[in-house]
């Protein structure tokens, strides 16, 4: 759908989406050696991997953090604030894992509580009010599963965040930078453009959780990871994401500067692209983007189509 908009905006060259021209992998054929899904899970979880706070520092020119959901508290697992990206003001919302055990405990391993999502919602509305684009970084094992999170409405907070992002009258670019754990990740992941770092993963459930349920043994996690197809290249093939931001051979932690530079280039290109799209078209395209994900069969529709006289089918094909 966005491609349609790109075309409507005046016959741009095939790379009107600004992905390949900004170094983003938009086609899996461009990946020399694909890692196994299990390797990708390990790389995505590597504690040395650059996390949101570090990437924000490297990617944006200035960043000022804003705290609190104005209702309950401030969630250290979500970093949110205003930043400058090449002369453009942006709202940044990101999940923050720790880079040490102490930091991980302080940030509950990047697992947000409801107040984290409500802080995000507050920032999304701020972006809408001032017409600023939103950039989110996703890096979480999942939303926090503790009893306090349940009491404060974890599910409602996630649902509301998905709702607000889906109808937000501002461009949204979401990037899975490490681990995209289920609904807790998706709550920051609804956008016009969704990117992943090359070795990031994004799945409906962790391989361990899936193995425990379907194989009744967490030790089958490697097989589960393969079955879930949650690695970046898989999701690019499945049409869930739009592109992969390349990482060096050894993973993002081996050359942080290069990774951040690549991410910056990709973000600038996408914001340039989205800035020229009228808001109403943007919202329609965002709706259709998610509306079209997933495949199903409708035997009765196929049968009904066959039962039509040939001239009606021909008219239908001609769009009449």
């Amino acid at each position, binding site marked *: 759908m966005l491609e349609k908009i790109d075309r409507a905006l005046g016959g741009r060259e095939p790379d009107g989406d600004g992905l390949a021209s900004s170094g983003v992998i938009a086609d899996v054929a461009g990946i020399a050696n694909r890692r196994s899904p299990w390797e990708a899970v390990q790389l995505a979880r590597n504690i040395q991997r650059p996390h949101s706070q570090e990437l924000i520092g490297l990617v944006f020119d200035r960043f000022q953090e804003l705290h609190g959901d104005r209702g309950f508290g401030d969630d250290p697992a979500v970093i949110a604030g205003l930043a400058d990206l090449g002369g453009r003001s942006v709202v940044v919302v990101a999940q923050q894992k720790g880079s040490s055990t102490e930091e991980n405990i302080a940030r509950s391993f990047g697992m947000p509580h409801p107040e984290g999502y409500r802080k995000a919602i507050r920032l999304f509305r701020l972006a809408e009010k001032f017409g600023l684009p939103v950039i989110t970084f996703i890096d979480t094992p999942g*939303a*926090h*599963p*503790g*009893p306090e*999170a*349940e*009491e*404060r*409405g*974890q*599910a*409602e907070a*996630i*649902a*509301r965040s*998905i*709702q607000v992002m*889906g*109808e937000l009258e501002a461009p949204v670019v979401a990037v899975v930078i490490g681990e995209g754990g*289920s*609904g807790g990740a*998706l*709550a920051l992941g*609804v956008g016009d453009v969704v990117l992943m770092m090359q070795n990031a993963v*994004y*799945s*409906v*459930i962790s391989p361990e*959780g*899936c193995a425990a*349920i*379907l*194989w009744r043994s967490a030790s089958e996690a490697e097989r*589960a990871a393969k*079955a*879930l*197809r*949650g690695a970046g290249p898989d*999701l690019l093939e*499945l049409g*869930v994401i739009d592109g992969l931001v390349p990482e060096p051979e050894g993973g993002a932690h081996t050359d942080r500067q290069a990774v951040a530079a690549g991410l910056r280039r990709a973000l600038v290109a996408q914001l340039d692209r989205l800035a020229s799209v009228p808001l109403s078209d943007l919202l329609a395209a965002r*709706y259709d983007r*998610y*509306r079209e*994900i*997933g*495949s*199903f*069969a*409708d*035997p*009765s*529709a196929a049968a*009904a189509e066959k039962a039509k006289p040939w001239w009606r089918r021909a008219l239908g094909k001609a769009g009449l």
Partner: protein
Amino acid sequence: MRLRVPFVKRSESAQHLWTQCPHCGEMLFNKQLARNLNVCTKCEHHFRVGARERIEQLADRASFAEIDPTLVSMDPLGFVDQKPYPARIAESQAKTAERDAVVCGDATIGGHPVTLAAMEFSFMGGSMGTVVGEKLARAAEHARDGRRGLVIVSASGGARMQEGTIALMQLVKTVAAVTRHGKAGLPFVSVLTDPTTGGVLASYASLGDVILAEPGALIGFSGARVTSSTIGAELPEGFQRAEFLLRHGFVDQVVPRAQLRDRIAFFLGAFSRPAREMRWGV
């Protein structure tokens, strides 16, 4: 094409005359249990009911006309665990006589036109994959086009693992569709029944204008096992039950099954009378 599918009568075989209530242990005569809407006559334990039976309980007599009855899942990932995903679907289809885990259609409830969807928990745990997401989105869009209210009765373990991240994206699809429906000024009543958890609760089901829950229903985001291992202790009695959510402000009412139809009709009626048309004291 719209198909009218007659309600399937539950098979009544001689071996299954009695059911023991899992809550109070009472032996219940099945016919009596059914007459009582599958609620224990002694302790009011609410048994799970299937999608068709739910629709029969809620929709006005003979008002239900099913939409999109034929959509079936594909296997986008080629998912195989101990069994291939298509085999699991076929098994559930044979068991439930449904094609997937939700039944949608137009109906009236207390005379109010609605699009009504009910989930079938015994079909792969009511899990939401592409077909459930698509049917719910279509139901919301259809309701919006026809200016009908939307009533969704959820009973689901969450997103369907066998469709991976594609299943996760159905959360966005359903949320976006009910949001558009709501923006047209139309009411959405979300009914949470035992169990409503995970990705279904974390999407459209938490976004009703009015959220009703059945007594004792398990409703929560995380599985109780995960939660109790997080704190390393047993969870208190009643954690993640309908009454717990009522106490914490996440459902509007806990409604016994026998009153559910009237209660939904009340809210649909209340929302369909804008203030400027209101006549006081008539």
